[in-house]
């Protein structure tokens, strides 16, 4: 599953995924366990833990996969409550809303965005070197859990 491990590596992270337990249905990837694996039939629509999908060669992660990455060492930014809410609403992260940075602080790195409870809210791309003590835009929102609501519209 190069496409998944490649995506995970962008966060300076790695997760162990047993390839024999990954199911692919219409370019959507699911992580199973042995119990679920024996129950798979061709009419499959969804199974186990959804990992994400590929479209035009690009990987779009699920929020379950992002949460899995966030449990280990990875690029992470912890944000305050107000910033967390704005991020879920699709907004970018400003430097003044960040309370902690873990892992890469370099421009163009990908980073997970977590709230004060260490819960992963999504991910984004660092727009400038975070070592610079400045205010203003710091992380461009790429995907956030507010997407669950947007999908329903």
């Amino acid at each position: 599953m190069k496409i998944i491990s490649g995506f995970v590596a962008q966060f300076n992270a790695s997760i162990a995924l047993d390839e024999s337990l990954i199911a692919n249905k219409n370019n959507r990837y699911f992580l199973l366990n042995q119990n679920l694996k024996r129950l798979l039939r061709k009419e499959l629509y969804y199974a186990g833990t959804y990992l994400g999908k590929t479209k035009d060669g690009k990987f779009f992660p699920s929020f379950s996969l992002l949460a899995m990455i966030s449990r280990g060492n990875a690029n992470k930014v912890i944000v305050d409550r107000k910033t967390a809410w704005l991020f879920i609403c699709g907004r970018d992260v400003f430097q003044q809303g960040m309370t902690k940075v873990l892992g890469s602080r370099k421009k163009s790195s990908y980073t997970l965005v977590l709230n004060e409870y260490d819960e992963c809210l999504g991910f984004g791309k660092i727009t400038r070197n975070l070592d610079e003590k400045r205010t203003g835009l710091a992380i461009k929102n790429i995907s956030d859990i507010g997407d669950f609501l947007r999908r329903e519209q």
Partner: protein
Amino acid sequence: MKRLKSFYSRFPNQRLMSGKEFFVKRYHSLGWNFEDVEPKQAIRINVVNAEKENVLRRLKLAGVKVQKIAFLENGYWIQESKVSVGATTEYLLGLYSIQEAAAQIPVTLFTELKDKMVLDACAAPGGKTVQLADSMGNTGAIIALDVRKRRLAALANHLERCRVSNTVVYQLDARQASKFGLEFERVLLDVPCSGNFAADSDWFKNRTFKDVERNAKLQKEILAEAYRLLKEDGEMVYSTCSLEPEENEFNMDWAVKNLDLQIEKIQCHGQNGLTNVFGKQLDASIENCRRIWPSETQGFFVCKLKKHGDI
């Protein structure tokens, strides 16, 4: 049957047997006086994802005032809210689900769910599937079926949001479930039904008795198929959000007499099932079912069955 015909003969001008008057008279003859109600909004905490106390504290911080639902372990009424409870961070992280209070009852009736093989035969949009997974602590396996693809998308979103990991979803008519060659220790049959006026303000305008009859037939077909898949000593919970006896007590009477299923006694919210309906005497065990007339909750019917032998 004669008595049923006699009941319907009271409505000679209603060839379609529909409309508010027709149904309200039926409810009256079942012992309930119609009243307009607005069910209260309810949530259920997904305890596999979060400590209950933490979720309650966070909801309070967000301006959501809740009250414990007396008859549910993890259910809470929304008393007041400054925000939409369907758009909080906690909701989007799957720490709780919005689930009507009566609809939370069926899953709680299974005696043991951990490590079990469970069929959720009519699963979408997935509120009860997530509740099953939560009660199972994501152990065992749930096979979730639904026939309509559009509803499966909602089910998949629900499973992903609530971090469910023990479920396999198939697009399949519940009446064809045996094609998988699997057997189940627990079966949840939250069957397609005619619904009720408390959950749909246009219900009286849109529903006719023909719909009720059509749904009752479909429900019997699903029951028969689910019976084939249920292991000996396995448990089946049947539920509808319909108030119509044809979809509830009559179907359970049919199941007891034709499928060698026994109705189990249950302790839960609601009144006893009706054993004499429109003059027709039903099996005495039907009183172990629960009928919930609309008030704080929507209308609902639930019954727990156990398999003891073959057809």
